[in-house]
């Protein structure tokens, strides 16, 4: 969290002047792995990467986050991802809510909810929930572990590491565990009027999982990772 305070907007000098980019610099950017230039993904403005080890680099024109650098990025994200995987297994093995009415107790896990939707002929909806709450987060965690473990032990990048990391980035908007957590809370209050609702172990592990996943992703430095996963080397 301390890196948040190191926030420093890139100074106007780090913007690239059309006339100031020398041909060798341009060639170096496009042909070597470690680039000195970076283009903003939201407005395409070129910036020179400063020689700073930690901090937050923002686009000087539109304010987009260009790079977030933290010390020990591989180790940190590896630790958070491992923790996330354990919590994920916990969250899917135990019921998250139990409803008591009279003598009846009805428990539900994430997967039984999805199966119930499937039984009601809502196949598309069942697949959507399965994807956004189970498969996408699981794929993200396994993909990150697959890439980070060899990097941590200073081995050569594993086969298809670049392709898998690209996939992890592309599916990111579709992992919606934190929204599901909100859904659990709403359902909890909603049913509170009708019956006694007992939150299960899963609610707590799920709650923790959201923060752990967020930490895992915010400790990643894609620019550094891409430098090390370069397909051409």
């Amino acid at each position, binding site marked *: 969290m301390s890196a948040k305070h190191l926030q420093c907007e890139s100074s106007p000098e780090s913007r690239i002047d059309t006339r100031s980019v020398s041909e060798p610099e341009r060639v170096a950017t496009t042909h070597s792995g470690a680039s000195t230039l970076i283009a903003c993904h939201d407005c395409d403005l070129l910036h020179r990467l400063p020689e700073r080890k930690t901090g937050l680099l923002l686009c000087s024109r539109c304010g987009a986050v260009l790079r977030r650098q933290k010390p020990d990025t591989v180790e940190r994200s590896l630790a958070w991802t491992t923790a996330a995987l354990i919590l994920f297994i916990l969250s899917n093995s135990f019921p998250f809510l139990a409803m008591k009415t009279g003598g009846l107790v009805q428990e539900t896990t994430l997967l039984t909810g999805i199966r119930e939707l499937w039984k009601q002929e809502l196949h598309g909806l069942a697949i959507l929930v399965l994807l956004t709450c189970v498969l996408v987060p699981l794929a993200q965690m396994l993909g990150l572990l697959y890439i980070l473990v060899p990097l941590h032990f200073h081995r050569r990048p594993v086969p298809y590491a670049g392709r898998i990391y690209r996939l992890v980035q592309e599916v990111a908007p579709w992992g919606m565990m934190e929204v599901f957590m909100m*859904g659990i809370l709403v359902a909890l209050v909603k049913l509170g009027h009708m019956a006694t609702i007992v939150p299960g172990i899963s609610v707590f592990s799920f709650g923790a999982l959201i923060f752990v996943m967020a930490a895992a992703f915010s400790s990643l430095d894609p620019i550094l990772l891409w430098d090390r996963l370069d397909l051409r080397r």
Partner: protein
Amino acid sequence: MSKSAATALELGLVNCHDCHLLVELEQARRHPHCPRCGAHLHARKPNSLARTWALVWAAIIFIVPANVLPMTVTTTLGAKQADTIMSGVIYFMQSGSWEIAAVIFIASVFVPFAKLCILIFLLCSVQFRWGWRPKDRTSLYRLTELVGRWSMVDIYVVTILVALVKLGAVAAIEAGPAAVYFAAVVVTTMFAAESFDPRLIWDVLEEDV
């Protein structure tokens, strides 16, 4: 806008969408795949405006049945009750749990409509080449990317209710037809936000200077 700053495209470079490697435009034309990560290379997202318009229109069509048809059908002791999104919000307001009413209203009604309005506004602003506050429009775009996912809350609530409340004749909740349309709205608006290219906002400014 100062004229001295340059964009990647002005210098003949293409920014890889996935790994942010800068590739020469010429090389990208000959071989349209990123040499570092293998992603498809494009200077701007292909057919960004047409795709986004199409998805926005699809979402506008889906949003009508999503709000008119019932989201859940509750059976209590033989009596059936169908609830739309708005009737659910009103029920919670009247029964005193205004927090839940607010959450459902914001996530299921306000966010989808606001997102569609913002996307239409951004599309028009690029199409009619407005130069108005580009930085704020880029922030608006980032906002739509960020909040769109939260509309899924209602879908998840329905999933949980359906799984939990099945006490045979006493009480049972079934998902209504609106659930499918509502999920379609969320998915199409998410794809629409993804296919819009915020760099178009800035391209207009540079071309008009």
